[in-house]
């Protein structure tokens, strides 16, 4: 199977115009790197073989995807999978080797320096794992830094920065230096700095992996809140599966530079594309991710469609379990006032046990 098969958008939850559109993107490090993508032989090789054969490392290999307006697009993978390189290619912080990137339909790779600078200044800004704050500046001036680079006047940019500082919950710390803040607070500054320029897209590069678990949770809530309030498009890089499942509308799972699966959290957990993904999602609490839609079966008869508790098809399996356990009988799945299916304890348990639809049949038979 090739990566392209998986990278076709499989759901149409947000069928709007893509913000980022990436096609056949390669990033190869090493001597004569530009020859690798064009060479069909190389495409077949594994990462180690490629390095042994050519001395090159392909950090991103033939990747294609779209990021839709308003969605949170998560790129997930272990370290070395090429996810950080990928996100840097989007604004050409790392120059891609080949492929195509478009933002709102405009070709990024053909942009000249000033156009590219324009892109970075106004359309996409980034939050970094290690914050990247200027240690010699106050919180306020750090937040205003992006505006300063744009050439916004001092008073105006400080006013705007003060607003954003308030928004990320750092009010009262404007005059502190980054060195006097905790990790979580520093990342709030990083977030505020990215927000201050009011970008179309926010790019996050493992923003919370350097933080303590509790603070990480807070920050995730913060991102969810911001997304809910502003509906900004976000591209989020992480190596933490639970974070990806929590935040992502769609998730691209990367391994050795390739996207091995792209889909909603439910698709990833519910129908892993290969053993690698399956292995990856094995320990996930599936009832938290899977929706009732996957667990339901068609109603056997009319009686079933009329009685029992009703659940929404987008509710999680754990919610349905609660309903079924309380009533002791199957629950109806209601959408727009119509019963579209039934969930019973057998179907729900199959989801929790991680059995696919085919396994389920085998058991039933």
């Amino acid at each position: 199977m090739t990566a392209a098969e998986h990278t076709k958008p499989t759901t149409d939850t947000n069928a709007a115009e893509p913000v980022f559109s990436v096609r056949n993107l390669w990033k190869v490090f090493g001597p004569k790197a530009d020859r690798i993508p064009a060479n069909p032989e190389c495409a077949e090789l594994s990462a180690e073989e490629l390095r042994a054969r050519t001395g090159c490392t392909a950090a991103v290999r033939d990747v294609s995807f779209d990021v839709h307006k308003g969605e949170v697009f998560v790129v997930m993978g272990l370290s070395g999978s090429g996810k950080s390189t990928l996100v840097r290619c989007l604004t050409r912080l790392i120059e891609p080797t080949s492929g195509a990137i478009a933002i709102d339909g405009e070709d990024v790779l053909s942009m000249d320096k000033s156009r590219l600078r324009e892109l970075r200044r106004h359309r996409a800004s980034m939050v970094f794992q290690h914050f990247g704050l200027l240690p010699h500046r106050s919180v306020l001036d750090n937040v205003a830094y992006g505006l300063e680079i744009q050439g916004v006047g001092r008073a105006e940019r400080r006013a705007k920065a003060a607003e954003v500082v308030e928004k990320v919950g750092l009010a009262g710390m404007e005059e502190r230096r980054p060195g006097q803040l905790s990790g979580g607070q520093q990342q709030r500054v990083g977030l505020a700095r990215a927000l201050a320029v009011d970008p179309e897209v926010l790019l996050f590069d493992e923003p919370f992996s350097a933080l303590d678990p509790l603070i990480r949770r807070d920050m995730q809530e913060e991102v969810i809140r911001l997304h809910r309030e502003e509906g900004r498009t976000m591209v989020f890089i992480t190596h933490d599966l639970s974070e990806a499942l929590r935040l992502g509308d769609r998730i691209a799972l990367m391994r050795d530079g390739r996207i091995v699966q792209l889909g909603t959290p439910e698709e990833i957990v519910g129908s892993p594309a290969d053993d690698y993904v399956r292995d990856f999602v094995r320990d996930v609490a599936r009832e938290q991710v899977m929706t009732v839609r996957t667990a339901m079966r068609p109603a056997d008869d009319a009686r079933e469609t009329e009685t029992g508790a009703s659940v929404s098809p987008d509710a999680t399996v754990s919610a349905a379990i609660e309903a079924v356990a309380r009533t002791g009988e199957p629950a109806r799945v209601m959408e727009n006032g119509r019963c579209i299916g039934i969930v019973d304890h057998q179907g729900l348990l199959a989801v929790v046990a991680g059995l696919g639809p085919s396994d389920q049949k085998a058991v039933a038979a």
Partner: protein
Amino acid sequence: MRMNTGNTRNTRVLRTATAAAAALGLLALSGCGAAETGKSQEAGDKKTVKLTVPSWVGAQANTAVAAYLLEKELGYTVKTQQMGEVLAWDALSKGDIDGILEDWGHPKEEKSYVDTKKTVVRGGDLGVTGHIGWFVPKYFADKHPDVTDWKNLNKYADEFKTAESGDKGEILEGSPDYVTNDDAIIKNLKLNLKTNYSGSEASQITAMKKYAKAKKPFLTYWWTPQWLNAEIDMVEVKLPEYKEGCDADPKKVACAYPKTPLQKFFNADFAKNGGKAAQFLKNFKWTTEQQNEVALMIADEKLSPEAAAEKWVKANESTWKAWMPKK
């Protein structure tokens, strides 16, 4: 590897910066045309006189007295600068200094600057006669009177032995500034001696004082006039007599050093346009004893040169009155 785009940008910044710096530099230099050579900047009756201060005290005495009189009697400002002799000649030619008051003979420089380039002019005798020679302390000469003949030096070589000279006798040498033929003399006279270059007059004097205090025998390259002679009695060892031209080939020298009437030299411009100051310095002439008197005040009583000059001037009015330019 993340600095990919960064690097090309750095290079550009760098190139722009280099170009800008180069352009600025060129502008700054070419914009103002040819530079002053420093020579003709203050013609006429200028009020500042620049004199060199050689490293030895005798010459410091000249400068101190001349400077004192120029400032107190003629109303000039005097700037003094310490420098090596040959360097002073060069500075004199450039006009960085106006006069050398005591020169022990630099035939090469004299030929080049005075005769060829004509940037320096002779200023006449200082009145003091200098003489270089080999000396032993008087306490040693008293005990062994025949040491004062070079032919007997080998007999005493053992007495002059030090760790530095090994199995030969040591002859102490002075600052590299001073003209010396000693290595040639030793070789050509077949003496069992070895030169030890003390590297500066200060360390030579320190060593001599140390020997004298312990009444140890020593042999040294030395000269008169020298203020230390008033403190340690020195006796000259007679070398084969100096004859005109016997020191022409530095490798074949086997004779004593000549007696040198010490000379004054002035910058040509200064001599012509220096007004009263130039006139005064040309007239400046005194005796070995007078120079020694001031030198001793500086070196031994540790008076500052100004204080020593003041003391001498107050006591010797008749002498310096004669140097004053005629009205």
